[in-house]
């Protein structure tokens, strides 16, 4: 993906305001599988529908409605373009979160020729959560940290 210079217009700023000044909830899409996905499932244990914790994050398959992209597991090189497409189809402003060592830097599969080692070169990544596999508490604290940043008025890296 080529980096484009984004100019924030007034309408976009209003969008941002409506989305985040008055709500604490992410709408997230989850890309990838493997160990970290199970741990993320595990971190929303308490709610009735275990896939959605209403207070913090709401998972959906609708890319356009989403504002947080969560990437987990080792990313195959064949997958990279489709992930970039998912990112582009999301509406601004949007955040990217990379979960787990495999997704961050390849992890145990670092030397494999089929695995993308540096997803952060292809996408503007806002926050990473390390761990192999990640712990549910770490994942939740990552989400809360991102929320604090947004409340303090920080813009996503894609817009900077």
């Amino acid at each position: 993906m080529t980096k484009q210079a984004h100019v924030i217009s007034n309408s976009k700023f209003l969008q941002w305001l409506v989305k985040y000044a008055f709500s604490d909830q992410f709408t997230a899409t989850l890309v990838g599988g493997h160990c970290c996905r199970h741990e993320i499932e595990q971190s929303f244990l308490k709610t009735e529908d275990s896939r959605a914790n209403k207070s913090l994050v709401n998972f959906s398959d609708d890319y356009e409605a989403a504002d947080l992209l969560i990437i987990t597991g080792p990313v195959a090189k064949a997958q990279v373009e489709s992930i970039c497409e998912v990112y582009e189809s999301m509406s601004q402003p949007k955040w990217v979160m990379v979960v787990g060592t495999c997704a961050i830097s390849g992890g145990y599969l670092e030397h494999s020729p089929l695995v993308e080692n540096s997803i952060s070169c292809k996408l503007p990544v806002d926050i990473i959560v390390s761990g192999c596999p990640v712990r549910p508490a770490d994942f939740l604290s990552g989400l809360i940290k991102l929320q604090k940043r947004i409340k303090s008025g920080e813009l996503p890296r894609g817009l900077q």
Partner: protein
Amino acid sequence: VSPTFEQSIHTDFWSSLAQAFPYQLKRTQDKRATLTIDYDQWILLHQKLHSDWGFFFLLDLYVVDQKDLAETRGQFLLISHLIHLEDFLQLTVETFFDEGETVSSLESVWTQALTYEREISHHFRLNFSKHQSHIKSDGYMRKNWGGDFADESSSRVSKYYDIRVNTSGEVTDFSFQTNSFSLGFEKIAEQMTLSQYLPCFERINSLASSFYSLALCRMVEETHQMIIPERDQAIRMIICELNRVLDHMSCLYQVFVHLELFELAAKCLKAREIIFRLFNGLSGNRSCGGLIRIGGLSFDLKMGWITDCSKHVDILALIVDQLMSATSRSWQWMNMTRIDPTSAKDALKFGVTGPALRACGVNYDLRKIEPYYFYADLAFEVPLGINGDIYDRGLVRIEEMRESLKIIFQLIDNLPRKTKDDKETDQVVHQLSYLDTIYRLGNYGQLPAGEYNSGVESSNGHLSLSVRSNGGEYPYRLRVRTPSFAHKEFLQLKCLGVDSENLELILASYNHNVSEMER
């Protein structure tokens, strides 16, 4: 010493097999032999073995690139693993061929061979007769691979399977993407020693990690003839049975989520959390084991873990009972899950193993057939189904969880004590840190030249591991036959003509796991 009755049967069998085929037959173990044949006879011999000699089951099919080896009859070595289901005899058939020759397909004998052949043509850039692969292959498993990807394989792939649905909602076309999500787990094994590779190998399927490490460790230990202390064997069995419960729970969780039974799904997650916490207490890692290492365990049990375990296993048994009462006798559940019946003949033909095969009524469990460690001494049963539909598969999984909890109870009651001798022997790795373990046992990862096999009954089915070594530090070729990968061809056939709403339910009931399929 006069041979026992069993041995005499086997010697007769192998000797008559050797007389029938004028090829080189080499017996490696009591129940295992290798047949080296000419390339022209490949299909004909397999047809004969299938029809006349009772080798119904194709376990594995793979290729070794022998470019570096000096004395070979051809560049590629094509290998098939067959199983005789009556006596559980295993036969390995090998043949050599060169670059440029088209490999004849085994599709006419076993339909499931298509999956293996597609993978081979992708890994090694080879052509098979009958089915031409349209996808340009990478050939990354070749020894002299230069790092060039084929254009089409690196094109964007968004979904794991292709699906077409007609207006009435039936699936008309269903196929998995061929190897577009593969991560090269087998390739990186050629760059490190086996003990270095072990933690990576566990991560092929994080929910069944201990079966993978057990398969690798057993193979190395048997070749080096190491003696594992009884305590370590028992602890390994406890971990494996806990892992079996974990994987079955997450399979049922997916089924319940697709049927929108969220209360039951939450119960499964609760059970999963209990097991994750028990693992955390063992090794500090929640899902990916880290305890089973070559030569024993990386460290002994922490103080008080056994009491913790026996407490939590009681809770698990309660949850399993609740699941049983909620599903087995409920009409609502029966109506929803009486889908997709399977006959035993089809399942065997397509190489299905594990709970999915047992739900059709075939009694095939490696823990009973080829008992390792203390499985021969324990009292447990193998639950079987009749119709092989989703209802039966679910029931078999729930019953199996009960049985494995029973096994854990028995093991905890009779857990062998730590003896003084254990610490003194060189092969035991108690009280060592993890890095020390790797350093100290680095030599044991090295195998003498030859071919090595091992098999473990994992939660999804028969997990078999084959390693070729040329005597070097690293394995020359490592091949793992994961159960989910073998189900691929069968699922493609099963999902045709099914309501598109039920499609994901069927996939979930087989516990089809992307990371296990595409290694």
